[in-house]
Structure formats: C-alpha cells, structure tokens
C-alpha cells in the first residue's frame, strides 16, 4: 500500500486564494490561507472597509427530526430557539432542522455527543456532517451590509437581521445560508452554500465589493480580530 502523502483537506476556495497570493498554514488537517498581504493591512481593511475570509474549515452539522430540539437541549445548555434564531453556533432553520457551526475540528466531538444523546432518547433524529459540502465565506467590515445588498434581496438592516440570525435566501442567484455573526462591534456575516458554487460566490462578491476596496484576509487577521 502506498500512502506516501499525508492527506490534506483543501477548501473550494483554495485555487482562488493561490491566485490572490495567499500563504497557507495547516490547521486541523485543512490547508487554509494564513495571510494574503500583511497582517496589519488585513486587520485595518476589516475594521475600516470590507474583507472576505475563507472559513470553510469550520465544522458544519445538520440535525433533523421532530425531536431535534429536545436532543439539542439535552446535549447543550440551550434555551428554545425560534426559527432563524441562533445561539452559540446553533441555528434553527426550520422547526425540525438545526444547523450547527463549530470551530474547525470540533464537529467530531459534537457529533459524537449528539449521536449518543439521540440514541439515548430513542427518537428519530438524523445527524449529518456537511463540513466538506459547504463553502463558508465570512464577510467582515463596515461595508458588509452594502456588499450584501448588491447580491441578495434580503433586508440586512440590524432591525430586520439582528446578530445571530440565520436565513436561507438567494445570493447572487444561488441558494445560501446567511448568518449574521458580528465580531464585537464589527459587522460580519457568514455565507454558507454548496462548495461547488463557492468559487463563483467568492468571485462575485469580490467583484461587487471593489467599490468598497474589498480584500481577502487570512487566519492571522481573523485571530487578531478576535476570531479563533
């Protein structure tokens, strides 16, 4: 048997990042952009303008079933969530469907926990990992809302789309899950959709963001901004 190379996970935006001159690091088996230009420039761009980051390596789980909520409440210290509401990375998409976003790698343990809880409850609940199936593009910066208003018909005003809200809608003519996840005071959204459309959505948002001076940022800038 020949396994000369250690398996490495690439995100659907890997080629785009290479073209944009990223340097990469490996984290939890994923090769992800560390920095594109300089850490300082990227942080300033996020704080003052508009940036896009590849966060595909975040773990993603779907939990489906009429009893999904009770399984979740048994597993985590979680109150009831309304549809489109979220808390601590758990978002309710339908009465019987939840989307769980985890830091890279954490999806394994969370999935185990949920599987155990669901088995114990003897309820019909399906837990599916879709980390590899969904590209996740983080839009960060004061112009986030304006950028999204160019590609999506939803109302992104904070009164209509508060922090920790998740909505599925049409973005650049594709179906995307849009989650508002501010970094402190800094407006930020996660755009999550099938990975095969990831490069297209990335390119489309980069083009639409030109007028705001959009730049890509890497893991280093995300960490500096307080996202780990």
């Amino acid at each position, binding site marked *: *048997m020949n*396994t000369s*190379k250690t398996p*490495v996970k690439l995100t659907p935006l890997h080629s785009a990042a290479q073209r944009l001159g990223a340097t990469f690091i490996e984290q939890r088996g994923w090769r992800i952009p560390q920095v594109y230009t300089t850490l300082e420039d990227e942080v300033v761009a996020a704080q003052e303008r508009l940036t896009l980051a590849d966060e*595909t390596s975040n773990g993603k789980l779907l939990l489906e079933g009429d009893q999904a909520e009770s399984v979740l409440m048994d597993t985590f210290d979680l109150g009831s969530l309304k549809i489109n509401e979220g808390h601590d990375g758990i978002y309710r998409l339908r009465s019987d469907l939840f989307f769980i976003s985890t830091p890279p790698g954490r999806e394994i343990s969370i999935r185990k926990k949920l599987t155990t809880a669901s088995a114990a409850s003897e309820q019909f609940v399906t837990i*599916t990992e879709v*980390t*590899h199936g969904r590209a996740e593009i983080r839009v960060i910066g004061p112009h986030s809302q304006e950028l999204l208003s160019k590609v999506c018909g939803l109302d992104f005003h904070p009164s209509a789309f508060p922090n920790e809200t998740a909505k599925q809608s049409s973005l650049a003519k594709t179906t995307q899950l849009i989650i508002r996840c501010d970094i402190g005071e800094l407006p930020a959204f996660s755009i999550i959709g*099938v990975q095969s459309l990831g490069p297209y959505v990335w390119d489309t948002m980069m083009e*639409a963001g030109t007028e705001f001076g959009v730049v890509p940022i890497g893991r280093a800038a995300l960490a500096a901004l307080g996202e780990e």
Partner: protein
Amino acid sequence: MRTEQDALTTTSNRLHPKQGEVIDRSTTIRFTFDGVEYTAHPGDTVASALTAAGVKVLSRSFKYHRPRGLLCCSGHCPNCLVQIGDEPNVRACTRPVEPGMEVRAQNVWPSLNRDLLSLTQLGSRFMPVGFYYKTFIRPQKLWPLYEHTLRHAAGLGEVDIDTPLGEFDKQYLHTDVVIVGGGPAGISAALSAAETGAQVLLFEENPALGGHLRFTVPLESSSTTKASKDLPELLEAVDRQPNITVFTDTSVLGWYQDNWLCAVKGARLFKIRTKSVVVATGAYETPLIFDNNDLPGVMLGSAVQRLVHLFGVLPGGQVVIVTANEDGWDVAADLQSLGVNVAAIVDEREPSACASPYREGLTNAGVPVFYRHTILEALGSNEVRGAKIARLDGQGEISLATAQSLQCDLIVTSMGWTPATELAYMAGGKSEYHEDRAEILPVSTPPGIYVVGRAAGTHAVNSQISEAQRAGSNAAAFVGFGEFDESTAYSSGVLEPRRTSERVCVPGKKKQFVCYCEDVTDEDVETAIAEGYDSIELLKRYSTISMGPCQGAMCSMNTIHLCARANDWTVQETGTTTARPPTTPVTLGALAGQNMEPVQTTPIHQWHLDHGADMMVAGLWLRPNHYGDPAAEATSVRERVGLIDVSPLGKLQLTGPGVPELLERIYTNQWDNLRVGRVRYGVMCNDEGVVLNDGVCAHVNDETWYMTTTSTGATTIFEWLQWWLQSGWGEGIHLTDLTDTYSAFNLAGPQSRTVLEKLTERNLANKAFPYMRLRSAKIAGVSCRLLRIGFTGELSYEVHCPSGYALHVWEALMDAGREFDIAPFGVEAQRILRLEKAHIIVGQDTDAMSDPLSANMAWAVKLDKPDFLGKPSLMRISAEGPKQLLVGFKMVEPNVVPDEGLQIVESEADGQLKIVGWITSSRFSPTLEEAIGLCWLPPDIASQNGASFTIRMDGHLAEARVHHGAFYDPDGERLRM
C-alpha cells in the same frame, strides 16, 4: 454660420455669474462635438455648453431627418440625443461635460448640417403613418434587402459591438417610505414622513434637490417668493434628518406589485422594496403643435429657465413668448430682466384673464403684448428666424387676415402642464380629466400610494408644501409611524388658476409634430384615426406615438386632445394609454447588472485546467469534455485504466425506517429486499410513466441509504423527493443532499482493481467485493465509499470521498495508476463507452414523452409491485403496446456517423418521405471501429435485429441496421471480472 475658430472663442451666450448656477467658472474644460472643439465649465451639460457656444442644431429627427434643437432641457424629449464615444442615445441636456469627451450627432448622413437623408421629407407622402405596417411587406423575399436599407436609414445611434463590457451593477434597498421627486413637494413629504421615525428614501432625477425652485425667479411679487427663499432651509432640514436617504441623478422607472420599485442611477439599478410611496414627480411642460414647431429655437419656458438659471446660458437674443398662463409671463420677466429683447408676448387669453404680477412692469417697459393671439408658424430654415402670429376671433378660431411676422431667434411656449403621474397609475391609481384645469389628474390611489404637487395638479408652492406634508405623514402612518391625517382626498388644486390650455394644436399647412421621437405629425394622427385606429391605445400602437424615448412625456396629452377632437369625443371619453415601465429609457447594461451566472466547479477543477482539459457546460457545471483525444481516452479505459471526475452526480442521503417503502414508491423496480452493502440500479418515473431520472442507490447501514442521480437532474430530483416527503410520504424519512459533501471519481478499466489495491488495505477481490456492492474503505488514508458499478462497461469502482480530500484522492489514484498508463477521461469518452454498452442517458436518449417500457428498460420495471409512481400509466402502455422503441443501430457504411437528432424516414407510395423515427445518440466507436448509435423506431422495425432503415442525412439518405443488445461485451462479463 459660425466657423470652427469662432466656437472656441465665442462665449457671448454666457450670462454674468448669478446665484444658484451650477457651473464652476474658474475652470474651463474642452470637448468636441462632431469633431469641432468647444469649451465648457465643470457643471455644464453637453447641451448647455453647446448652447453657450451658439450651437442650435443638436440632432436630426428619426424619420424625416429634420434638424432638431433643445426643447425641454430636462432629459425628457428626444431632441438632444447624441452619441458620446461608444454610448448612443445620450441626452445632451442632462449629461455633464467631461474633459475630452467626444460627442457626435446621431442619425445624420453625411453630417449634421447637411443631412442628405432629410430629402426624405420631400417624399414624405411615401412615409405615411403606419409606414412599417404598410410598406416593405411584399414581396417577402425582398425583406432582407428592405431590412438592410431600413437599418441604415432608421434607428438612432451606433452600437459598437466591440465595446468592452461596462461595469453595471444592482442594489436592493428596503425602506418604509419612498418619495419619488425631490422638488418642494417631495422634500416636504420626506421631512414629514421622516419626523415620525419612518425610514425614507428620496429619489430625484436631477443632480440636486429643489425641483422647479432651482430655476424659477424669486422676484418680489412672485407667488413663489416665500418658498424659494425657503429652499435652502428645506435642503438643510433634509441634511439634518438622519431618517432620509437622498438619491439624486436617479430615475424611478417603474412600480411593480407589492410596492417594488425599480430605479436607475447611472450604471446602477436599484430594486426597492417599500411599504408606501409618495409620488411627487411634478409635471412635464406640454409643447404646442403649430407649423414647423420642431424648428431649433422653439423651446419650452421651463427649458429656458433651466438654461438661464442653472447654467447662465441665454439661448437667444430676441424672443417671442407664446403662452396661456402666468408661467409664460414669468419667463418673459426673467428674460427681460437679463437684457433680452422680448419681441412679443403672445397670450391666447383675454387681457382680463391675465393675473401675472409682471404684467404691469413688462407693459410699462414697452414689451409688445398680443392678447387673444397665438402662433401660426415658426419661420426659418435650419433655426428660428421669426414667428408668424395671428389673432383669435370670438369663437377662438384663427383669423388668418390678421397674420403678421415678428423677427426673433427664440420662440418660447408656455402653454400648460402634463402631470407626471405614470407611477401612480402603474400602482393602480385612477384619474379624471378636469375640464376647468385641462389636466388629467389623479382622483384615487390604492392604499399606501400618495400623489402630491404638480403631479396632483397643485402648482402653488405653498399649497404643494402643505399637501405634501399631509401625504408624508400619511405615508408614514400607513407603515405604522404616527397618526393619519384624515384630509387625504385629492383636491387637484381646484382653488388655483388654470395653468393649462386646451388649445394644443394650431391648424396650419406645414409639418406640425405631435411626437418628436417618432416624427408623427398631426396629419398622421388624423390619418390613423380615419383608417380606423381611433381608440387611444390603438392609435398609440399604430402611429408609435409615445413609444419613443420620451415615453409620452411630450406627446401623450396632445395626442389625447387630437384623438378626442377627431372622434368628437370628450377627453374623459378618450381616456389615456396604460402606464407601463420604464418611465424613462434605461440602458440594457443597467438592466443586466453585474454578470451573475452561477457556475459549479468540482474540487479538482484547477487540476483539470492544468492538465489541458477542454471544459464543457453541463447544467451549471463545468466538466472536462476531454483532455485532447476522447477516442484515445476511451481506449485507455477498454484496454488499461482511466479515471473520470463524476463529482457532479447527485448524491442524496435517505435515513429512517420509512425509506424502503419510499424507494418502492419512487422507483419502478423492487427495493424492499436490498440488503446492506448492496447497490441497485433504478429508474424513476412520474405518474404519466415518463422517465425522470436514473441512477443507483446503495443500502449503507440499517437506516441509511445513499442514492445517486444524474448530474443535471440532481436538483430536480431533490425537489421532487422533497415534494413527496412533505406532501404525505415523509413519515420516518429524512432526506439530505450530499452532492457537494462527497466528490466522486470513477476508476474504470481492467487494471482498476490493481490500481486501487495499491491505495487500500481493503480486500478488493471479486469475491469479497463483487459487482453492485458498496464498501467503505480508506483510500490513500481517506475514508471513502466505494461503489462497484459500471456505466462504462468495464470493471470499475466509483470512489466517493469527502470533498476536502478530493485532490488528494484523485492525485493518489493518478499516481497509483501511472505504471499502468492511466488516463484521465472526460464526458466525451464516457459517452462513447456507455454507447458501446447501449446504456441510455436520461434526457439525451429519452424526452418528456419517453416511458421505460419503450426506452428498452422494461427489465427495470416491476409491474407486479403494489404501486409506484407511474405504474397506472405504465400498465396502460404495457397493455396497448409501445408506439416507438428505443433501440441500437449500426451504419451500413461503418465510417458514416449520422448527427444526433436526424430523422429516420420511410418512402411512401407517392415518393414522399415520411418521418418514422429519430437518432438520439451516435458516435464512432474506437473499440468496434464503426459508427453506432441509439434511435427511436416503430416497434415493427425495432423488434427485428438487423432490420434496415433509412436516415435522412444532409442532402442524401443513409442506411442503418437495428442492433439488439450492447455493441460491446453483450453479456457484461467485463463488469464482473
């Protein structure tokens, strides 16, 4: 006529600097018009700069190529349409001059001032109304010639197909209240609405807020004095109000259902969702129809005021004012105070009807005033040299004996206003003709839609403001902010003096234009009505009136009057044409916006590109069609081993105890006996018995199944399954789309097992892992699902790996296969390989009429199952017998490959050819070295192996023979090796 040198030096039409002007005189910029250089100041429009330089003719008319000059100066009429660089049909009166701009006149040949095509007006009796419908129709075969000639002569501007893509985009806006129009009414409505806490978007098509207050004169005794002084205050209040967002240079193009508005600002299109709308769009000044009324130098009063006050430009030195209201007197006073020689005021009213505050002053200054007079004709050939006027008798008829000519170089008409109410009517508003006002005004609007200001017939500024404040509060209250003001009925300015004359046309003997866009004359309108196109909607379509760039702004009211008169109807009886978007022309680029055509790529897209793949579009997917030589790729698979990226395959996960019953219902074959670890092929039909999709489904573990669908059918089948699950068959079933979670590669060929064995510890021996089985295995260290299936007809493994590992697994497979000369293969090679096996492709070999019994898949249909989708229809088809069968064929001449889609024909007794079938797939088989294919044939031919039939090729017929079964390895031994 000026020389080119003059143009650069003469600025005699420029007034001294005055307050309110928008030009920056400290800077001078240069641009060209038809190759001649001119100067301008920043803030100038192309038209204001050209007018300052004394240029009067800006374009040639659409049909007769008559010279045309500035008319409305507000971006509504077609007279100043020019070409700027590669952009056609730009309105010179609103487009700011930029340094170095190259402006050209349109529709001229060979030049603006000597247009040979203007000779068409000599033969204008050959270009009657309905010209397009009457002429160039027969003989039909000459149409290409006609079209070529017409395209040269007609149309405006030049489209350069080499122009690079412009940068257009769109933006969605959401708000509580939209105010359309930023004049005193619009501003006041916005302020009142915003004060309640509502979010307000205020749209203004001009570069600045203020509406007519920007260019009307604030003289002592004027009725507009107070408000004009208030304009800076209004603007300041808007600035201070955080709930108002102002969009200038933005035209609202249309209203659509549920308060969805469309607006355009330059290269950006806005799609606006609001909860209420205030229409404060003002009014268009209505031109008067008289002989040669299109002569350059005939202008609307408001156009002159714009030129004078915004740009400091005088369009003439000696002016005749033709009017029927106080607005004309305002213009006269304005011009006179600037030292212009007002040659005459020609007012159609009795002296007693004139209430202008300037009357005394102008009379005392010796300005000749002709009451009860009107204009007969504009005199001059290329531009105005004089005006012929005449007295009106007691009945209001023209007394020709009193005709006299006055010398002038500018004729100003101020005859009345057409309220700009298109948006209100698009939204469902109703209107009535007010005879006392001679205006068609709104009488009711749907809830949440308000009309104010001149659009509602309110001209006095103070009335406009109070009316708009009420409407603004109501618009906000409609959304839930503040209280309703009950006095909402349309007053339609009943207390105001009449501003609009019913005399829209002074009969004469020369050309009189109703419609400047399409060169429609009053005579054309009468002819059209005489020919039976008497209703206003028919008249519009037949004459093309109001269908040009002005979209009715200049012509709709006049046409209604002419139509009413010719039919002897009242204006109310005549009615109006339906208001439709766009209210003003919009570039196709703005409608298209940023290019957003979704493209799906697999995780190893870049690898394909790096290895010379020729990519093809399949649905939204980009897939390698081949890497250079598809026949060689197919041969690699037959003889050695190949690898294809089949990641676009639909991959659905079904979990739960209800799944077996669902599979029984949605597939035509049997499923409830599929054991864990097994894979089965299945066909899905709808209830008509039509084949929707095919693929395999694997039983993964107790309660998990893994279904694949065709690449292009994945989304449709997912939605189809969602429908059945959510409409009653979903008990105990969860469905998840894993199409993107797994990438899939098919490793095919006699060496595929050997290659795969290098990468896994899993026992791949035929006994341990036979055909149509599923196994999980680590491949190159990555947990994968392996499906042993064979679309290509060779031993093959479909490797499904988590997409993040796709490149790793793909490269590991390619590395492992190198010693066996592995080749990546594309869709084309796969199509050859499957055709050699006579495997069908749903959607290629089947269509929306194909059932599986006829499509050679009867083996996959179990009509003895209790029920499944399509069964009742298939039972009936089975009983009646298929009408056509899908079957393989070989060509008699082995090198002739008939195109897909060609007809299969039979000779009838009379020698005619009858179509009896068609080709769905055909290729040259590199393995068999002959042409093969699939086709639909009548059962009597299809059922005989070797039966010959005829294909209609391009210009000749070719013979082919029916072939039953697979062309290659008919017993399927290679799959099971």
